[in-house]
């Protein structure tokens, strides 16, 4: 990545999106923040401007309930961008299985945001990047999408679907020299029901954002965060079965 970029940050109002936006702004890149709440967008934009006054920050509201509006948003992004466009997508909403059990609408809501919104947006912006014939796309996945656990399998399934879609998308975009990096963040942090006394350290969003940028710069396809999750995930895939054994 030699040239200056305009990073389109989906989910720019959440902690991970905010940390990523800071990371790229620190390196002198411009930022377009997309998010659902105007107030939150302003908050992140003000934060970036106070930290890095020389960086150009644009905010745009994204209505995830209206997927058809995305092509217009992409047009606006293209018009606002002064440099090569790259995308960081961390749109995510999380409900525990218990919450989903009480209200099935929450499952639909998770698919709408974690899967459909990202897939629609990336599909809509893909031609813009293909035209540039360069750029990076980073999508935040989750280890929850690797195996189903009793407390978060609905959330996990949204991520699993996204991971599969991204594999195909990555191959397609590679033809135009665009890298697509999926960073599977470990989910100790994101799902609330589990007794996490064993893992005292929750995921550090700043370190995760830093790692995402680093992996994209290296053109990685799939990476885990933290890196050692790559070693534990193959074993953790058996956890659902072990869980069953323990219950017995």
């Amino acid at each position, binding site marked *: 990545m030699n040239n200056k970029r305009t990073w389109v940050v989906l989910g720019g109002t*959440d*902690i991970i999106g*905010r940390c990523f936006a800071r990371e790229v702004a620190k390196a002198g890149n411009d930022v377009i923040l997309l998010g659902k709440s105007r107030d*939150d967008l302003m*908050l*992140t934009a*003000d*934060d970036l401007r*106070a*930290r890095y006054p020389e960086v150009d920050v644009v905010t745009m509201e994204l209505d995830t309930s209206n997927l058809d509006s995305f092509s217009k948003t992409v047009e606006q992004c293209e018009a606002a961008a002064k440099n090569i466009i790259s995308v960081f997508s961390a749109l995510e909403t*999380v409900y*525990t299985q218990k919450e989903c059990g009480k209200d099935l609408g929450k499952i639909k809501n998770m698919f709408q945001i974690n899967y459909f919104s990202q897939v629609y947006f990336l599909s809509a912006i893909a031609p813009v990047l293909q035209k540039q014939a360069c750029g990076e796309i980073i999508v935040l996945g989750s280890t929850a999408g690797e195996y189903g656990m009793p407390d978060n399998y609905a959330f996990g399934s949204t991520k699993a679907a996204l991971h599969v879609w991204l594999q195909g998308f990555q191959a397609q975009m590679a033809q135009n020299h665009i890298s697509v990096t999926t960073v599977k963040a470990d989910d100790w942090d994101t*799902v*609330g029901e589990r*007794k*996490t*006394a064993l893992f*005292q350290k*929750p995921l550090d*969003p700043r370190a995760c954002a830093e790692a995402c940028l680093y992996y994209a710069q290296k053109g990685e396809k799939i990476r885990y965060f933290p890196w050692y999750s790559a070693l534990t995930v193959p074993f953790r895939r058996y956890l659902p079965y072990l869980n069953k054994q323990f219950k017995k």
Partner: protein
Amino acid sequence: MHWYEIKLGGKGYTNSGLSQVCRPDRVSDIAKYLEQVGKNGVIARGSGSSYADQTVNADGAVMMSGRLDCIRSFDEKTGELICEPGVTLKTITEIFAPRGFMLSVVSGSGQHTLGAAIAANMVGQNAHKRMSLAKYVNWIDVVLADGEIVRASHTENEELFKAVVGGQGLIGFIALISVTLLKRPEENVLVERRRINNLNDLMEALKSARKNADFCSVWLDTSAPADSVGRSILTTASFTKEPCGEPLFSLPKIKWHLPHFALYLASLPVFKNLRYRLSGSISKKVEPYESFLYLSDKVKVLSQKGVYQLRISFSEAEGPQAIRRILTELSQTRISACRAFLVLTKEDTLSYLGSALRGYTISLDFIRRRGLEDFLKHLIMVAGEHNGCVSLQNDALLEPRHLFVMYKNLEKFIKVRETYDPQRKFDSDFGRRLFLKEKKNEQ
């Protein structure tokens, strides 16, 4: 909005507890989380580097401020920074030092959050000049037990301000801060290190440091023999126009993660003796201001055995005598501190629970071992006899009876707490340890 069940502890590994933990993403979420708080209340937690039970709330709730880390605005003309409490001191330095601004307090570590630095009324190596951070705080927005956000400052809701500053999170949650960053006079500092033979010489040297130096701290050899009690290395620093010398070679910047053993080594008399002897009688060096800061962050000792810190403030009049007595006792009993530092302070009038007096603050770290607690309680008694004040920041051993003797504004603090949080929605193991009596009195 999620709660997580996590076992949290203090940095010193002396206290820990299983708590329901939340991490609000935005200021407006704080009140919503507060509504869900049940038994044992909730306590705010920044980066969790208080040594003991200040941020531990067993069977209760803990609210982490790490995600409230937005900077709202910065005024280059006045230096006014408005930000959320989770912004760390290091972040502020990283962003604003290159623009010629600095925080008024220079602490040992940059990992601390700004909210916590105010709630713990942090003092640093320049406390003899600048006192604590609170002096430069224009106002704070505090979320109270009922979810209402109230602005407090030196002039508005002054009593609330004085109780929240240094109040260890027991009054409310600091949600927004306006603080003035100072114009940094120069880019570099001239750092001078001097080996000092005994306490009398040290006190003389400190007199001139109080007048002339911008920063001052003393490493103390706590295992020095009785005839050279107070043997130490004095570090002073002042801003200078002089340029930095180019080093012949520079070591790679590594953040050392040392095991417990390193801390144990540091407490051995042999090591202290070596450190003292190896330091030149006097050395001077011009350094960039940023590299002079946050020395504790360069070495991280991972000790899970437990470390106690005792930080005591003495007046100028009582200080030399009291410090001599403490150091002599340490030397005689051969209980060696793994870290011992002395800084100069000004009287803290900005906080009801402010411990600093115009004089000296000695800070002693000890590795946990059998019998140590009794000895430290004895030192607390010695501090009381010399009208000293034990700081609450990292304390693990104070008892309610000590508070009444050492903190002259304690009644005022209790009154404010009673007014704003009669149900003790904000509470912690620390709060229950020290204010238990107050509760009993009520009953």
